[in-house]
């Protein structure tokens, strides 16, 4: 074993329980100075919990932490930051009404004599940092004006600007596109050069291998192993995480592609223009593009969440208008939103109620809900999608992110739609679950549904789609067929080039 002095952070025997859920039991984590340390584990393995314990948001039930060779205990983030640890949180948390500068320097304000705010100086400093990151907005812009990805960037900027010795990044790239991710990686390398340690949590294996030096793996709240990344293969890591082998993350099955189910013509709205495409029975249509290219906007508009300016939609040959999601669902178009927290779940209601919410009309006896049937069917669906919860009567709140995502998918699975739109269906979902969700998508397609999947992860789009549409700045910029990918005619680079506007 290495000498103790090598470590900047040592966590020993940490345990933490929430009510009856043992989120962490006797885990350890050792991080060296100047390294990027990956933390891997399934959804709900306890990664975020350990990180929140380190920065003092949770208090561990047992265990000790040593930071820079000194016993370390903090009451909250302020003390953690003062000690030299900052964190990018998994669940994006913008302060909607603060400006970018105010947000970055929250709790570290520039002041005159410690009392009055020096807004000018603060804005100047913020502008400087933003420029360094080539951020497209000024320091006075309100956070609520930013897109998810931009908020994520601000979170990164904020954590990096703290001059911390250790930066915790909990799934920082879950809503970034490849360009922005590259930007982040450049920053991480810079930090590394300065001797800053980074704990990097992600479910994207490729990233882990690209940027990280060492890895620790958690499973079900316990510590599994810790090793140099150079010494392991992807499959070994996955089996450590999941405790079994995941044969194939992209278990795409080919099924018969039938007649056109859904078609849009010249669809124009906020963020997209002149979109034309059709999707067939049994087809998985992948949609790729940079963040902010208007993919989500298109789908939101189709689903009735946003307004359409012009253009028309046809479902099974009949023209239709969706004024609201309600109308869309009635006609058989369903959508899993990218923003799980905002559009996915009622966190304080039970899993059962969440799953059955859009499916109640069909499960009534007279005017009453047939609760027996509801319970039975929800249980079946939850089991099928391997939602990890003690019972479906638990609140959505108590689930890990990946499991929440499964619940959201479960409700549409139950609805059995004609067209299922999935916007970033595997964001923040672990490999095992990812594979499960992917095979579910194939099952949907096999049942004759038309599946539309938006994803910012190129391997996912390429691995799962029968056909890929590529967006660039609100317009369609090309179409790629599965056979072109399989034959190798269309590689990752070519698709990327199209995303950037090339031909």
């Amino acid at each position, binding site marked *: 074993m290495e000498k103790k002095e090598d470590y900047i952070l040592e966590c020993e025997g940490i345990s933490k329980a929430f009510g009856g859920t043992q989120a962490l039991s006797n885990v350890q984590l050792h991080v060296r100075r100047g390294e990027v340390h990956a933390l891997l584990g399934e959804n709900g393995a306890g990664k975020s919990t350990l990180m929140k314990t380190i920065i003092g948001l949770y208090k561990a039930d047992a265990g000790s932490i040593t930071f820079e060779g000194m016993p370390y205990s903090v009451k909250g983030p302020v003390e953690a930051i003062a000690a030299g640890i900052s964190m990018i949180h998994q669940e994006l948390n913008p302060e909607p009404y603060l400006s970018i500068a105010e947000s970055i320097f929250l709790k570290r304000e520039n002041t005159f004599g410690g009392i009055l705010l020096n807004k000018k100086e603060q804005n100047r400093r913020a502008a400087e940092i933003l420029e360094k990151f080539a951020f497209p907005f000024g320091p006075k812009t309100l956070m609520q004006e930013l897109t998810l990805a931009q908020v994520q960037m601000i979170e990164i900027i904020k954590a990096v600007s703290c001059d911390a010795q250790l930066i915790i990044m909990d799934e920082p790239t879950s809503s970034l596109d490849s360009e922005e991710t590259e930007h982040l990686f450049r920053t991480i390398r810079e930090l590394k050069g300065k001797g800053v340690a980074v704990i990097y949590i992600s479910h994207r294996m490729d990233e882990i291998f690209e940027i990280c030096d060492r890895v620790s793996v958690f499973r079900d709240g316990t510590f599994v192993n810790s090793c140099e990344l150079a010494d392991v293969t992807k499959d070994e890591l996955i089996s450590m995480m999941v405790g079994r082998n995941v044969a194939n993350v992209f278990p795409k099955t080919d099924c018969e592609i039938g007649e056109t189910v859904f078609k849009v013509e010249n669809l124009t709205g906020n963020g997209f223009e002149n979109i034309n495409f059709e999707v067939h029975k049994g087809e998985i249509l992948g949609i790729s593009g940079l963040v902010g290219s208007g993919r989500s906007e298109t789908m939101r508009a189709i689903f009735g969440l946003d307004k359409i300016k012009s253009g028309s939609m046809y479902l099974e040959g009949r023209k239709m208008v969706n004024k*609201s999601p309600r109308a869309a669902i009635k006609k058989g178009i369903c959508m899993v939103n990218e923003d799980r927290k905002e559009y996915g779940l009622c966190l304080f209601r039970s899993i059962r*109620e969440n799953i059955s919410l859009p499916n109640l009309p069909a499960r009534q006896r007279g005017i009453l809900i047939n609760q027996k049937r509801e319970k039975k069917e929800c249980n079946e669906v939850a089991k099928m999608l391997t939602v990890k919860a003690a019972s479906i009567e638990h609140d959505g709140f108590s689930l890990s992110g990946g499991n929440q995502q499964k619940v959201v998918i479960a409700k549409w699975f139950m609805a059995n739609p004609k067209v299922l739109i999935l916007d970033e269906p595997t964001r923040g979902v672990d490999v095992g679950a990812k594979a499960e969700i992917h095979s579910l998508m194939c099952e949907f397609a096999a049942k004759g549904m038309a599946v539309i999947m938006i994803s910012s992860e190129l391997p996912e789009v390429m691995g799962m789609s029968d056909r890929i549409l590529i967006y660039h700045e609100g317009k369609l910029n090309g179409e790629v067929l599965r056979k072109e990918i399989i034959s190798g005619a269309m590689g990752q680079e070519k698709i990327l080039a199209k995303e950037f506007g090339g031909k």
Partner: protein
Amino acid sequence: MAVKEEKKVLGIDRDKFRMFMGKYGIGVVLFIMIIVISIMEPAFRSAKNFINVATQVSINGMISYGMCLVITTGGIDLSVGAQLALVSCILGQFITNFGVNPFLACLIALLASTAFGFLNGFFVARFNMFPFVVTLSTQLIIRGLAQVISGGNAIPLTSETFQHIYSSKVGPIPLPIVILFIVTVVVYIMLHWTKFGRYIFAVGGNVHAAIASGVSEFWTKVGAYTISGLLAGIAGIIFTAKTSSAQSNIGIGYETDAVAACVLGGTSFAGGVATIPGVVMGIFIIGFIYNGMNLIGIESYYQSMTKGAVIIGAVLLDMVLNRKKG
């Protein structure tokens, strides 16, 4: 997976316990209260007194159910007290001054209060205004209307038929209790056993998620406020039958007792969480506070303090018992 199975067993047990406490934690408070008052005051224990309290709480009960629905959608209805006044004045005007049949008059009054409930919901849902602001304003408007209708006067209601709404009995049970019971059952079924109830929970829990699941925010909210208006109307009828006088200055501050009952019953101001059995207990706790204080004979200057302390104490105790946000 073995671990999961284990947790599941344990989980269900804990689950059951939590559900029990969640539903009945406040029941413990209620129980303690009954015991304490019983010891301090023997007259409290009689069946007669319980019937008495049940009759007394019928007015606040109606209002509380409506309030519970509205709070569960994430709102609040401050106009209920004024609704009592409006209903009362309409009844007085129609029955006494125009000689309209009492039942018809009740129908008209209920229509009016329901319409104002609808209006509340409409403003809240259509314009996305804050419920506190909307219902604060409609409170003033509704009470103003009551004043205009009554000219500020008290109109005596001498119709025997009408007075019987409060004083007649079904067997040994006074009619207001019967009405309260029926409304309780209906609201219980509505909230816990129908689509509409689920939608209320969903809209209150996470309005965007509800919309994205095909729930109509507009109709759910409008529905909740309209029902609140209707129930306030029924409460107004009982109130008017009880005092047999129609005037515009009644019901001032009645929304607070209703809110208190809801909160004691575990209704979350954040929306999305409520149970009708809980609210029933909340209603009775409020009823017992008044009844108990009167019977024990707490000095009048201390009554207000006692009430405040009991409410905050009960909420705290309930929180401790089932560790939730109160």
